[in-house]
């Protein structure tokens, strides 16, 4: 009789990375549905193409790296990266834009660093940041909220035209994002005057706010299923809220309301779906609080003084840099120790020991 030898524990919970990622995908559905509902079929094309590219590029690189395909593809992580980049792109994004973004995300940011778990930076945000810097025109041209079936709505064929690059979106179709419009209102224009001029296509603000709430619903699902912990979203949104309130309180005529900052851009989406990417985030619970707050502060700083109207991607990437530092300084107090460890000590190797 010879039986199996294994190291303890001999039993494990029925979880897997694949199912974790599947829950994340499921949680993106309300947000995606809302985006499609307000901004048309282009969003759907973006998401599907980006997700497909994610899987395809991952498979290609795995093949080149001579790694097993099945196990890795089943972890669904490339799919998640694709979906997250897809929803971030403007609804008129042409195919090559998505391709460039996904190559940056999957090939450069993820696989070149060693694949899942090894990437120091959030892949989707690397792709997004690269596109935003390289193709500012395409990336800042957002759609007007004409809806799926409204009078001015463009159909699937229009969307396909934009996607394939054979049709350019007309002025009637495009519109600025609320954050973008508000940022460029001009220093002499007061906030109240600005809003009185009705600067955005009808329903834009409503569309953005509804979408933000849809992301919030997805985020709530992730929290409920314990796929993510509350630390990062809470500290991120808390930091945004506090800073926005302070700014608004100091000068309401030139700053957006706290609610505008929370719901007007990608703050909620970023808080629940981008910043919570476990691979590139801080690991300890305390570290997650610092990490989230750092992103929230950076978002507000860039929105206020930076060149970009919204800043989730840059804020997340900047804080990704800080993660090893945060991790070293936020270790929990281990059982039986008086105080937690701080920082990392390099043990001095004494080469001169024999000489003395």
């Amino acid at each position, binding site marked *: 009789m010879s039986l199996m030898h294994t190291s303890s524990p001999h039993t494990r919970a029925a979880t897997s990375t694949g199912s974790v990622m599947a829950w994340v995908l499921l949680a993106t559905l309300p947000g995606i549905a809302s985006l499609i509902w307000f901004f048309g079929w282009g969003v759907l094309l973006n998401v599907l193409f980006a997700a497909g590219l994610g899987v395809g590029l991952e498979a290609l690189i795995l093949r080149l790296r001579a790694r097993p395909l099945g196990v890795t593809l089943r*972890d669904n992580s490339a799919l998640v990266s694709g979906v997250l980049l897809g929803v971030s792109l403007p609804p008129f994004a042409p195919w090559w834009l998505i391709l460039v973004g996904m190559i940056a995300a999957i090939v450069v940011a993820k696989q070149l660093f060693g694949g*899942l778990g090894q990437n120091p930076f959030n892949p989707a945000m690397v792709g997004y940041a690269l596109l935003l810097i390289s193709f500012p025109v395409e990336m800042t041209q957002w759609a007007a909220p004409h809806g799926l079936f409204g009078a001015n709505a463009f159909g699937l064929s229009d969307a396909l035209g934009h996607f394939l690059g054979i049709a350019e979106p007309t002025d009637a179709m495009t519109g600025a994002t609320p954050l973008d419009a508000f940022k460029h209102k001009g220093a002499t224009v007061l906030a109240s005057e600005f809003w009185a001029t009705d600067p955005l296509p009808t329903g834009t603000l409503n569309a953005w706010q509804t979408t933000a709430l849809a992301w919030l619903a997805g985020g709530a699902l992730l929290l409920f299923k314990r796929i993510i912990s509350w630390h990062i979203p809470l500290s991120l949104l808390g930091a945004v809220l506090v800073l926005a309130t302070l700014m608004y309180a100091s000068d309401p005529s030139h700053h957006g309301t706290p609610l505008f900052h929370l719901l007007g851009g990608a703050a909620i989406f970023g808080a629940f779906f981008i910043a919570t990417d476990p691979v590139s985030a801080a690991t300890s*619970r305390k570290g997650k609080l610092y990490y989230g707050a750092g992103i929230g502060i950076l978002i507000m700083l860039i929105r206020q003084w930076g060149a970009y109207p919204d800043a989730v991607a840059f804020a997340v990437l900047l804080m990704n840099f800080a993660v090893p530092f945060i991790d070293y300084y936020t270790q929990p107090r281990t059982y039986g120790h008086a105080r937690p460890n701080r920082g990392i000590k390099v043990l001095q190797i004494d080469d001169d020991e024999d000489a003395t």
Partner: protein
Amino acid sequence: MADFDFPGGIHPPQRKTLSNRAPLRQAPLPKRVVLPLTQHLGLPAEPIVVPGQRVRTGEVIARAQGMISANLHASITGTVSAIEEHPVPHPSAALGEVRALCIIIDAEPDDQNDWLLMPPLDWRTSDDETLIDRLRESGIVGLGGAGFPTAVKAQVRQRHVIDTLIVNAAECEPYITADDLTLRSYAADVLEGAQLFARLCGAERVLIGIEDNKPEAIDALSQVLRKPAAADIAVELKIVPTRYPSGGEKQLVQLLTGREVPSGGLPADVGVLCHNPGTLLAALRAVRDGEPQIYRIVTLTGEALANPGNVEARIGTSIHELLAFSELQPEHLSRLVMGGPMMGLTLGSGALPLIKTSNCLIAATAEELPPAPPEQPCIRCGACEIACPASLLPQQLYWFAKGREHDKAELFNLFDCIECGACAYVCPSHIPLVQYYRASKSEIRAREQEAHKAEHARHRFEFRQARIAREEAEKLAKREARMKRTPAPPTPSTSSDTTTAQPETASTSADHAAQLRKLKIAQAAAKAAVKKAEKNLARISEARQSDKTELEDMETQLATARENLRATEARLTMLQAKNQEQDQETNPS
């Protein structure tokens, strides 16, 4: 309910009903027992029987060696057939069968109940010395799993002040119900055993930590507690919520008292002593009935058994026989675990003996404990951190262990990991985290031993050098003295020393003064070094865990310092003598 809490923890399926429905049974007496000489922490016991010798049940067959060790007794009456290497249950059996020296006894066919008992004692009237002697004589070790000799633990008072005795009846691992059945069947005896230990260690209170999934054991305990004896020490029943690993010693101490055992320390460092109910029962029986530890209660469970339950079985019984008693269906058996599914070890076959620390045997089917799915990359999700009861960062430790950055792993408190397996249980990437930690720990230990060896060699070398230097200095001094005593006419052939000394004497006496001062400083330094070495040695030998090699090292260092001092003193006296001589020479002229 518990007044305090510990962080983390998990809720694996309990699977206790498999084995806790049937009452406690007696396993049939084995025809042959295999008794390993090491069933405890510490040095192996020394056999005192020879093959062919007849032994009676309860007779000592191997004696404890050194301070931490335990006696071994014949668990059946019969003839010692061999003292030889035999496969034994061992954590490293995964790397290949582990064999250890065992005493094998074949039962006599007719009379098997010929016991050799010690005289019964009344623990309430016996003094501590007698009781500790009895525990030592009975070979009792901690039955919870570690197997620490109980007699050693009973002397805790020599070094620590204990205020609380904890009876660890949490039994948090899935499947295991041995403590549950022990309490249901012998609640009064266990509590009396607790009183005995509370007296021995000087505790002011006894806390019984038990998970709320054992209502019958709790009932049995409360029934006994309702009629306490007058002289008894206060006992409190603390029912804690079922959560793994609440029965981990450190976790239970935290849960019941709010105290934390310091890193690298013992519960005794915070005034707490923990005992398993089975140990208390065995101790009481050893004292009250004079029975040494020759049997224990063990859970036989798993879906490959048709008739699971708890049995009282003789130590050394073949596991195969026990499983057969529980009607093992060999065709369904895929994994055999000794201990629980979280921390137990797998056995390669049933041809191994039951030892003092085996609390449970799980004969699992392939569906029940399926093989681990393939390991996937860590996504740093932090599920392990939330589950960790020691507040470690398991994923960081994993990266360090995998990258063999052992110094960083140590900085992140790798050695505070209790290997409970909660992190590996929750890991969505199916990473065998505990295995990584064990590998890292053993590499660090091996490296430390290596470093220690080198250090040891260095100290020996330094001692040798110092001795040679001292001998030379003394020789030189002697020769000088001899020459002084026999003032032979200075012929050129007498000594090269004198010829070289000629220009020296010619040189200024300031040179000599400088040399003298230098030597005096060296002498003071050498004296200080000797003092320091003496102090170090005293400190080390006082320390609780005095390592033998460390002691030896310190002794060598002290000897080296003494040699150095002697050498300097010899040189000093020589120089002083020379100076005097010169003074005498120069003054008359």
